[in-house]
Structures are given as C-alpha cells and as structure tokens.
C-alpha cells in the first residue's frame, strides 16, 4: 500500500514537473520584451535591430515556440539541460555550482523554522490564554510584519559594520578555500533574517491548530477520564500537525521567491538570485533549468511532507473514504 502510494505520488510529481516546465516555458516566452535586448543586459543601449535579429537567429529564438519547447524537452529528457545563452556553459554545471548554497540556506532555515515553530507553537498552543500564548501570537505577527530586507540591512549595519563580527556578504571567504566553518559564518545572517521573519507565522499557525485540536470532544473525554497528560498531548500534536504541514507545503515554494531578496542583499549565490538574473536577461535555458531544479526541490519537499501526513493520517493510509 505504502509503496504503491509513493509510486503514485512520484509519478504525479513528474507530471507536475512537466506542467511546470511547460508553463514556465510559455510564460517566459510570452512575456513581453525582446530577448535579444535583455541578453545584452547593461550593454543594451548599444544594440540595434540588425544585432537583435542576429542574436535571435543564433539562439534559434525565431523558431516557432512549440518546436523550441519540443527541442528543449527532448534534450532535457536526455539529461542535457543545454547551454546558458549568456555564460555559454552547460546549464547543469551552473546550477550545480549554486545548488549547495541554496540547499544549505533552504535546509538550515527550514530546519530552524520547523523546529522553532514546533517548539513555540506547541508550547503556546497547549496553554491557551497564558502569557506565552498571548505573547507568541502578538510577537509572531509583529515579526512577520517587518520586511525581511529591512531586518537584513539592520543586521549588516550592526553585526558587520558596528561590531565587525560577521561577514556581510558572500557565501564564503574570498581568500580562503571555503571550509565549513567559514561557510557557516557567512550563512548566519541571511539564515537568521529568513528565520526571524518566518518562524512567527508558522508558530502561529501551529498554535492555532493545536488550540483548535484541543477543543475537540475526544480531548475533553480523555481529560475527564484521567488519561495521562503526556498521552493526550501526543495525540493533539499529532493531529494538529496535519494542517500545519499542509500549510508548510503550500508555502515552501515561496521560500525560493522570498529568499531572492535576501540572497541579493547578502550576495549569497543561490538559485533564487540566478533565476532572477536569468529572467531579466531572458537566458531561457538557464531559467528553465533553474525552475526545473527548484521544481524538483519543491516537489521532493512536498512529497516528504505528504508522506509524513500520510503516515500521520490513517484515513489516507487505509484508503478509507472520508
């Protein structure tokens, strides 16, 4: 049953990826603007019609869209993501350079956001009306009401310029060979900013669902019959996690969108920055590769989340009708 479920979900994931590629390909191409100009970036002013046509021809941008997509898909299925227009290097190489950084930032922030929000959300939700409960609901809203880039600039001004204890940009020391400690030092600030501005909302969400779950009849019944508090809490958390995970799954993609700004502020060379750049330059092969890669990351995360939900929710596992 479980194996079958995973198989089915994986297949669906592949289908989703296909839709993602199709959509992004057409959205990007349908987007107004001339790819030849975009291609020239800062030199765009020194570009005339003849040049534009020439560039379009070189990159086969003058072929019909559907055949371009077909060609792209064929290459991609073969495991070849093509060459970046701008850099001329294989897309896969470029992406792989960025991937570790992105996974690191994504992974670290996600781990802290999840563990932080679990801890805060559960402890606050279990004591409705307590000081902790009230302060978490207020502080979480407050923390999520400050724009992340503001927090970032303040952090730089304080930790880098004033105290001089943390490097303000980059994903590794420029002179060194990029050891792990060095990497982590660079990671602290961008990760902190994302965590601080996000953890509140998730904690809040969990807190709410813990509270709602605690109001359930079965909790009252268990309490009234002297069931151990530990057992009761265990059951509540288990059920409260389901909507929480659902929400987490729904918002994971926005991590990539949201982190773009943080990445550019801290010059953290991740996929988000790369994608923004490739959109503005209309570097389609790179962009498609980037979207596909984030797509894989997102879909794998969703798969993991769905799997946890599947384990937590016997209704899904038993294939019963709701």
């Amino acid at each position, binding site marked *: 049953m479980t194996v079958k479920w995973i198989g089915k979900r994986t297949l669906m994931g592949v289908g989703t990826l296909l839709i993602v590629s199709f959509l992004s390909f057409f959205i990007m191409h349908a987007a107004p603007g001339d790819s030849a100009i975009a291609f020239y970036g800062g030199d765009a002013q020194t570009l005339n019609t003849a040049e534009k046509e020439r560039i379009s021809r070189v990159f086969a941008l003058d072929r019909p869209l559907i055949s371009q997509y077909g060609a792209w898909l064929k290459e991609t299925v073969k495991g070849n993501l093509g060459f970046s227009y701008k850099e001329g290097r294989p897309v896969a190489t470029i992406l792989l350079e960025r991937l570790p950084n992105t996974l690191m930032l994504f992974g670290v922030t996600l781990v802290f956001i999840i563990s932080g929000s679990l801890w805060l959300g559960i402890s606050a939700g279990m004591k409705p009306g307590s000081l902790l409960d009230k302060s978490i609901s207020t502080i979480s809203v407050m923390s999520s009401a400050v724009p992340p880039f503001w927090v970032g600039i303040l952090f730089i001004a304080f930790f880098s310029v004033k105290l001089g204890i943390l490097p303000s940009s980059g994903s590794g020391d420029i002179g060194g060979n990029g050891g792990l400690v060095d990497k982590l030092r660079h990671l602290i600030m961008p990760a902190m900013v994302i965590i601080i501005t996000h953890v509140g909302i998730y904690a809040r969400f969990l807190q709410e669902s813990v509270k709602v779950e605690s109001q359930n009849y079965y909790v009252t019944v268990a309490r009234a019959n002297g069931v151990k508090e530990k057992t009761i809490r265990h059951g509540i958390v288990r059920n409260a996690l389901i909507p929480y995970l659902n929400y987490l799954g729904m918002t994971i993609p926005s991590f990539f*969108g949201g982190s773009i700004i943080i990445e550019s502020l801290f010059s953290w060379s991740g996929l988000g920055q790369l*994608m923004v750049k490739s959109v503005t330059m209309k570097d389609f092969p790179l962009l498609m590769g980037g979207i596909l890669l984030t797509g894989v990351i997102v879909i794998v995360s969703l798969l993991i989340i769905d799997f946890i939900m599947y384990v937590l929710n016997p209704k899904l596992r038993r294939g019963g009708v709701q």
Partner: protein
Amino acid sequence: MKSSKVLVFWGIILSLIIIMTIFSQFLSPYSPNEMNMDAIYQPPGQDHLLGTDHLGRDVESRLLEGGKVTLIVAGSSVLLSLVIGVLYGGISGYIGGIIDTVMMRFLEALLTIPSLIIILAFQMFMKGDIWSMAFIIGITSWLTTARIVRSEFIRLKDLEFVKMAKMLGTPIVRILFGHLLRNSIPAIFVVTLFGFANAIFMEVTLGFLGIGVPPEIPSWGNMLYHAQNDILIGAWWIGLFPGILIFITILAINFIGDGLKSPKRRRLDA
C-alpha cells in the same frame, strides 16, 4: 468578549489609516511629487513634519498619498485573487474526480514556480499604472485561496445538507453560492485578510527589486526601496515612517483577521 475589544481597537486603527490616505489630498501639506533640490534630506522639523527625501519631496505628503496607492494595489489585488481563487478552487473542489486532480496538479505547478519569477517575466504589464500592478499581484497570489476554497468545498460537499439540496433539485448555482460558498466564508475571510498583508509585502518587495509602481507615483513600497540607501546616510526618517505604517497596517489586518476567526463563529456541524 475581550477579543471583540481588540477587534474594535484594531478596526479603528485600520479605518484611521484608510481614511487618512483617502483624504490625503486635504491632509498633506505639499504635493507628493513636489521636488525641492534645496531641501534634500531635511530631517523632521518645522517645514516638513516628517522630513524630506533624496529629491527634496515631503515625506509626510508622500506617506499619505503612497498609502492610497499601496492600499489600492493591495486591496484590488486581493479582490482579484479572491475571485480567481474562489472560482478555481470552487470548481476543482465541487466537480472533483479527474478534473480536480488535473486542476490541482496545475495549481501545484504554478505554486512551484516562484511567483516573483512570474511577476518579473510580466513586469511589462506594470508599465503605467497601479492597476496593472494590482492585476499582476492578484494574478499570482490566488493559489492559497484556491487551495483553501477547494478543501472547504470538498468538506462541505460531503455534508448532508448539500446532499439534501441535490436531492431537492436545487440548481447548481444556488448550491455553489448558497450552500458551499456561504459556509466557506469564515475560512476564505481569514486567508483573504492574510493575503492583504501579503500583497502589501509584495508591493514592497517589487519596490525593492525596482519594479514596483512607476517612480513618480509614491507608494510605501517604493518609499522603502529608496530608503535603504538613506540608512547609510543617516536619513532614518524616510524609511522609518512608511515602515511603521506598513507594520501597523499589517498588524491591524492580522488582528482583525484573528479576531474574526477565533470567537465562537464555529458552525454547529464543525
């Protein structure tokens, strides 16, 4: 009881902000675009209550006028995303089956592409006015609403009163609106309010990327965008005030959304 007091308090705050921005024309001492190269970076004081910015424009006037823009962008984009989300999620949830599966995969796919990327791709639409900005934010932010509406519809669809309605021959439109939509309102309301806060952020974020509303139109977003340069110079007032207003507005919306969610609004079947 207590929560309703909170509701009233934040409701008043929010309406104050809205009223202030609506009547910005009468309240602001200068025209929001009036530039004065002799009065650049003036700290808050006599002539300019909240100081001036890098083009010598009055921060207070821009703040009021900008609020209008930001709130219009946020408000109408939320409205748009609400309409799309309700329709999409409603259809998907109500019809179910293979159509639902396909629609949900499609939605998942859209969810996977960071919306900022889509917005960047379509920034051409932003040319000109704030409505196109609202449009573009709206069209990229309906996904959560759609998911929520869908799950609400799926939940409600199985309830007996909906089954009864089908048996009573109630027309489908009435089932959709009268039974399903009307009972999803609490849930939709909450996501919509959070969506409002999100839209303000999106406006700010786009401002940060330099692709927000046109530069001659003031908005909290592009004020904040410029203000990041001003921090270094020490012109704290340019960023502080829009920052505070965004903060308070989002806070107000959050608490209102919350207040409406938590009281005993739960249905008897819940």
